[in-house]
């Protein structure tokens, strides 16, 4: 039914009757290429070609607007490189289900703004760290390297907004749709280390029966969320609340036959559990004269009630279990433009996992796993990011370096330059350098540091 509605809407969009300045069509063609930095001659890790089309139709000026965005991509590296053959099916799955990025109707009148349909909603002020930005699940097929617009998996939802006074907004979200967050398939460049070890373990067993149970499609299984935004003096702030299913499944593993060693048979059941977010965010630019004039400060705070967290030893692919903990994450950031055109941005924060050490079998080491990357995390994980950017040649040539990581030390260093060859043609060249131990979120990709390029033609 959904597809039928979409097709009708799309046909309407492209029909001649809709011609004129009420209809806008835009899109791009893009090629992304990456090579493993350690062996440039042969190790192609990505040759992804993307086409995106977006259409906007103003049914009644800005009061009633239909918008849709579609994307299709194909990564030829999975064809060309033998070692990714086994990942082809899973990668293909992503490109088949991920084609519809946006499809919604906007209604905007007086104090009301409604956006109904498939969309993504971004909360919070943090850059690159999902403290409050958890309304949509994430596609981590390429780790956290994509733009956040591409990382978020859009969902069908009702996004209802009401402004009781100037500069305020009350947002209420009802999300009956559900998608799980995705990570890279097996044998892809960014397959998590724990997944590889799990697969090794699975192959060594006589049998592993795997079942995944998604939340039943019932209204009460919807995600409900709200955000209150307002301004006091020069301070913008929000209060946030979300109650919904965690987008990563919890595994329950039961020994069916055998002793637990090789050649045993197992039952692995994956289910999704509800959790809650209580959060807040703020931003403030210091505009008055003084030593801090020109600084912008921003921050996010999130309290996660019943967040499912794995623990175990990632090096031996051992998950000792899963806990539903009450965790906290916060980020504070400061931005400033210094000298001429040099923009600096720094963030520091902590991911505080409530229990200092999980209880588990003493024969193994027990680490907390980061819920997104399944790399090991400290009970109090200190997180930082630093970004510097500037431009030359009348903004034609832009340069940027991003450094992010934790105090373990592990992290990623990503310099890049982009050059606007023509109005519609943008070239980008960059490097992602990963460092850290094999157990860590970034360190698990230390052999996947890559040089990449992209060519984007917009229309």
């Amino acid at each position, binding site marked *: 039914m959904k597809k039928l509605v979409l097709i009708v809407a799309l046909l309407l969009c492209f029909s001649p009757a809709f011609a004129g300045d009420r209809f806008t069509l835009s899109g791009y063609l893009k090629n992304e290429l990456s090579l493993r930095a350690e062996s440039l001659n042969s190790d192609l890790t990505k040759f992804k070609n993307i086409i995106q089309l*977006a259409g906007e139709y103003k049914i009644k000026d800005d009061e009633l607007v239909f918008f849709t965005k579609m994307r299709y991509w194909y990564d030829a590296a999975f064809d060309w490189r033998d070692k990714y053959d086994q990942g082809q099916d899973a990668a293909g799955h992503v490109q088949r289900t991920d084609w519809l990025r946006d499809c919604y109707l906007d209604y905007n009148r007086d104090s009301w*703004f409604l*956006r109904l349909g498939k969309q993504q909603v971004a909360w919070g002020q943090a850059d690159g760290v999902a403290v409050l*930005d958890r309304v949509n699940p994430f596609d981590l097929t390429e780790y956290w390297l994509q733009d956040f617009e591409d990382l978020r998996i859009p969902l069908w939802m009702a996004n209802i907004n009401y402004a009781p006074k100037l500069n305020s907004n009350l947002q209420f979200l009802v999300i009956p749709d559900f998608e799980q967050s995705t990570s890279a398939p097996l044998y892809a460049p960014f397959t998590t280390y724990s997944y590889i070890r799990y697969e090794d373990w699975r192959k060594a067993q006589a049998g592993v029966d795997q079942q995944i149970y998604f939340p039943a499609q019932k209204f009460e299984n919807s995600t409900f969320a709200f955000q209150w935004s307002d301004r006091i003096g020069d301070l913008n702030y929000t209060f946030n609340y979300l109650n919904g299913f965690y987008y990563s499944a919890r595994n329950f593993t039961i020994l069916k036959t055998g002793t637990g060693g090789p050649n045993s048979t197992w039952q692995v059941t994956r289910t999704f559990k509800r959790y809650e977010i209580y959060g807040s965010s703020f931003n403030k*630019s210091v505009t008055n*004269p003084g030593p801090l004039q*020109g600084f912008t400060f*921003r921050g996010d705070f999130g309290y996660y009630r019943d967040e499912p967290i794995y623990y175990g030893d990632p090096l031996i692919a051992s998950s000792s279990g899963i806990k539903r903990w009450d965790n906290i994450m916060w980020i504070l950031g400061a931005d400033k433009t*210094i000298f*001429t055109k040099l923009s600096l941005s720094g963030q520091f924060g902590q991911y505080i996992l409530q229990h200092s050490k999980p209880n588990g079998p003493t024969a193994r080491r027990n680490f907390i796993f980061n819920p997104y990357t399944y790399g090991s995390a400290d009970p109090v994980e200190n997180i930082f990011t630093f970004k510097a950017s500037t431009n030359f040649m009348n903004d034609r040539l832009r340069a940027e370096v991003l450094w992010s990581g934790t105090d373990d030390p592990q992290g990623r260093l990503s310099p890049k330059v982009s050059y606007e060859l023509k109005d519609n043609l943008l070239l980008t060249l960059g490097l992602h350098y990963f460092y850290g131990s094999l157990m860590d979120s970034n360190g698990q990709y230390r052999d996947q540091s890559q040089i990449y390029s992209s060519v984007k033609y917009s229309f």
Partner: protein
Amino acid sequence: MKKLFLLLAALALIPGYCLAAGLEYFQVYTPKDGMSADEIMQIEYFVKYTRFAHDVKMLGKSYFVDKAGGVREKATSRTRITLGRKSDDIAYKDLVIFTTPQVRGMGTLTWTYMNPAKQPDSWLWIPSLKKIRKISASNSDDSFLGSDFTVEDILTRKFEDETYVLKGSENFKGYTCEFNKKTYFAGVPCFVIEARPKKSPWYYSKRMLWVDKSTGGGIYEEKYDVTGRIYQTIFKNFEIFNVNNKAYPTQTLLEVKDLRTGHRTVITNDNIKYDQGLKEDLFSERSLMQSRW
């Protein structure tokens, strides 16, 4: 008789006092012979920032032309509401949305304050993040959106940032625009004003301005570097828009040339509509959040 004379003298001082204290919003002022450089420049700033109008909408195009003649183009939709509100010190709010494919949907919201020492508040909608980011104010000497204009040329320079000397009056020699080859304002009577920045050192040592006597618009200026050499010229074409029986002088074409690099930027403003009764809630984070691109 003495009292009457004193009263008349006091009344005669009132316009001067008003100018010194700042011009009233939503009025149209024109400079007159006999005014001081400060009075003329207050009007020039008033015209530059369209403080006579309650709101304005326009479509803008920027052309970046390099020395070899290569042209890049960016298109924007620009909206401004003038408030001049003392309670929260807000002078006006601007919303600029890019409509060029490469950056389609990118938008900036800027609130500018009446207090000359206070920097603007700015928000940016970043399509690649689908998110609003509060951004720190750009430095005044930064390039404005990659053009040859600086941020203060377009947005932040205020009357209080410079000192002014009236160098005289003359008929403008005319300016031939490289963009459309038309010659503008030949023989138009102008005040010639020298403006020197109070900041020192600063990226320019002085500006020489030609202010049109009939509108108060600064139609031409020359910028000089710290060694006293001219390095940039800026031309602005003004057209009169009659709105509710008031004559609004409006910038319709701007051309800036960097004489050191040979690069120039042209901005054209079209489809200009004044006083449409725009609501202030259009100039809010919530409005940026509604971006679809």
